[in-house]
């Protein structure tokens, strides 16, 4: 079994879930090396950028992984999401500069989700795809609005922006590839049961 762990925001929590579930996870020392693949406890652990977890799992290059709903939706990932974790919850918000004009231009790391959000509201706006520090776009007037994840709201407050609307409630999930799910039902059920229990205990 190959499991994809997201680097960054969710990495530590993701690993501790697997540790709590009784899996032999890569150690701190392992992680300090520049390796990206670790064999431990009969499992191949791979470490990839958070947004790439759904891609690996969707295509069967990893059997399961942990991914935020933001990345799952953005990649139109069709993998199963059998466990929703109690940690790492946040919101995807439409954010604007104070006194911003009606929405005509919006910057985001999530062009696909933003497009769907705009379509649902019948709003015609140009999407400017960025890869980070999205709030800056509104601060510097590159766009009037941005769509981004808000955890504590601190970034939004510091930049004197205002939150206008919730685009989606985001939480991390265990995702399991469809082909893996269908062809290795015993292994999958065991994985889900263990992770579910670990998630329940940690909440």
């Amino acid at each position, binding site marked *: 079994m190959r499991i994809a762990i997201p680097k960054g925001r969710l990495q530590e929590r993701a690993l501790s879930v697997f540790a709590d579930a009784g899996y032999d996870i890569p150690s701190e020392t392992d992680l300090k090396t520049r390796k990206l693949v670790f064999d431990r406890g009969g499992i191949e652990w791979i470490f990839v950028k958070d947004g790439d977890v759904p891609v690996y799992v969707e295509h069967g290059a990893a059997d399961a992984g942990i991914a935020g709903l933001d990345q799952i939706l953005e990649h*139109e990932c069709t993998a*199963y*999401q*059998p*466990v929703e974790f109690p940690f790492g919850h946040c919101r995807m918000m439409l954010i604007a500069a104070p006194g911003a004009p009606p929405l005509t231009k919006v910057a985001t790391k999530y062009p696909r989700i933003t497009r769907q959000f705009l379509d649902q509201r019948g709003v015609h706006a140009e999407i400017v795809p960025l890869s980070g520090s999205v709030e800056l776009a509104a601060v510097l007037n590159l766009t009037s609005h941005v769509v981004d994840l808000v955890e504590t709201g601190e970034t939004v407050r510091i930049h004197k922006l205002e939150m206008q609307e919730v685009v989606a409630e985001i939480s991390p999930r265990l995702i399991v590839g469809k082909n893996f799910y*269908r*062809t*290795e039902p015993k292994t999958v*059920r065991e994985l889900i049961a263990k992770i579910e229990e670990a998630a329940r205990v940690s909440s």
Partner: protein
Amino acid sequence: MATKSRYPTGVRPLLAEETARRRRIELRFVDALAGAGFSEVVLPIIDYVEPYGALVEPATAKQSYRFVDREGDLIAIRSDFTPMLARALAPSIAPEELPLRLFYRGDVIRVEASRLGANRELFQIGAEIIGDDSIDADVAMLRLAADLVRAPRNEPNAEPTIVYNDVSIAAALIAQAGAVCEALAAKRMTAGVPAALQTIVAKLISGEATLNDVAPFAPEAAARLSAIEEAVAGDAVFTLHLDDIEDSGYYTGLRFRVYAGSGRTKVAQGGRYDNLYERFGQRAAAIGFAFTIDDLD
């Protein structure tokens, strides 16, 4: 970018070696199907969009290439053989000719989100039995699919898997409460599943559900699956997966998928669609499957 040195996304030529490989598999399939009493039909590569009307769901429509032809009609390039065969046959089949055993081969062009970076032009060989709603026909098609995928593949470590289910089970539950769909799709109990259905949905999700558990909700499907299960019991290739619900499309009963190779690739899928022919003006039960040949190892 100049188009001189590349092809549109998802298509490419097959040169001698790959073509030879494809033809080898194709010949084997055609021999096996002819041997099993199936006759070949040829269907057009393009067709009007209009006759398929409501049959094509928005998601499927998005997968096909469409254009307006010289007469101003909306045309789609073939993306699925089954509805085309129904449209071709329905006006002319005489009940006394049934059942028909037919097969077809050719390309379909399809843009699937889940096949990111993969081929969009897929060479398929499919077979159908039209006018037979019996469990025997279900079992015959499952066995035929197993024979085709298994034939000369001497890979002891990569036994194929055929997962089967009946789409009317989930449909019956979803008809009672739409929230069931979301829960089964995610494989997680979600808010909104009514108390009366929580037990069965939880069992389906955890994989503990048996045919006895689903029988009160979908008695006919449970009885059919039970008979099929008994008939294929001796073959380890077959696995009953009661929680499998997605993309039911025009399917009405048995639904199955064939996985093969070390990469657990889905190489074929099929099922029963007893209402499809009716939409083209003739009642006839039907069951079929299609293999995507280049996905076979």
